């Protein structure tokens, strides 16, 4: 029984490793500054990420709705201050309905209370604009890695990483 579990974990790990070397980490960019989103999307695509873009929180939730789990983005890069629905509200709903998606907040807003609240709700990271592309890439890769670890833990019944 224990051996089976170990094998299962190994299989999961192998699967995670092979998946983590894929060149198609899926990212959803959510920001009302269209020029920013479009340019950042091009730069991330040049780094072999699969990128989708939306320009407000409602569009982000609509994008995720009815998406098969395997098509969900690995990471969402989310602005905080957007018209209509704030990034914090989007984060709350994503964590509630799509908990597998890791959320990186990328904002021009510098309030510590927002960062604390985002942390409490389960944000993966909280970055400030303008961000260095290598820093962002590093955090996206890390979010992807953590997502895979959580998935592996779920399969093996060990939820200690969640």
């Amino acid at each position: 029984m224990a051996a089976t579990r170990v094998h299962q974990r190994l299989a999961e790990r192998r699967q995670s490793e092979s998946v983590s070397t894929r060149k198609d980490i899926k990212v959803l960019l959510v920001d009302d500054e269209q020029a920013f989103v479009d340019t950042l999307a091009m730069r991330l695509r040049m780094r072999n990420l699969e990128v989708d873009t939306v320009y407000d929180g409602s569009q982000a939730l609509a994008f995720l709705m009815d998406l098969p789990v395997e098509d969900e983005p690995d990471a969402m890069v989310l602005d905080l201050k957007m018209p209509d629905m704030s990034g914090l509200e989007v984060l709350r709903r994503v964590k509630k309905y799509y908990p597998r998606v890791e959320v990186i907040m990328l904002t021009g807003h510098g309030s510590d209370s927002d960062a604390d609240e985002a942390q409490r709700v389960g944000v993966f990271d909280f970055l400030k604009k303008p961000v260095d592309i290598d820093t962002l890439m590093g955090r996206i890769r890390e979010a992807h890695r953590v997502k895979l670890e959580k998935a592996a833990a779920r399969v093996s019944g060990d939820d200690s990483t969640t």
Partner: protein
Amino acid sequence: MEQNREKDLRVAQTTFVGRIIASFTHELRNYLAIIGESAGLQQDMISLGGKSKLDASEYLKFLKDIEAEVRRALKLITYLNRYAHRMDFETSDFSVNEAMEELAALVSRLAYLKKISLEREFGPDIPIIHTSPALIQLVVYCLFDQMLKSMSRNSTITLKTEAVSGAVAISLTPRGTPAEAAEEGMCSGTELEQVLQSIGGTMTRQSDGAATVQLPFTKPAGG
């Protein structure tokens, strides 16, 4: 009583300045982010190149984006700088339209975030007046803040200036659907009236929620 009034006024002014600066720095970060990404993309094209090469017109587009963002940022910086200098002296000669244009530019993002549009209707030939521009801006901002909190999205607030028999009238008129649960504004009505009284102004409110501030024409200091 007088001490309390001054304390309330100081709190309101500090809150106002804080909000303007927070909104300004947020916008500036957005502009810098766009500039940074556009410049970064050019670097990527050179260093990563490959299949993703852009043609000349696309390069030009990104360079123009940088230029446009620099212009947007400079405009906002100019407004913030002018706003800051309004507080150099207790009173000064100023154009009401300029002071209102500057205020509208600095607070428009707050309206945008609530999906409320801020429209301007500035009357022509409004004489230069001599009073406290910082206090006028504070009063108008307080009224605007109250309206933002009491209106639902897709509403409009019109900021209008006009010359009316010996005075300058600045009015704010909300149009649209009232919010289901209106939050309290930053300043109380009594506070605003007291501030206006101290500079010889008056305020009237209409049943539709509109508010008008009237400031008597006062000769410029040198005039």
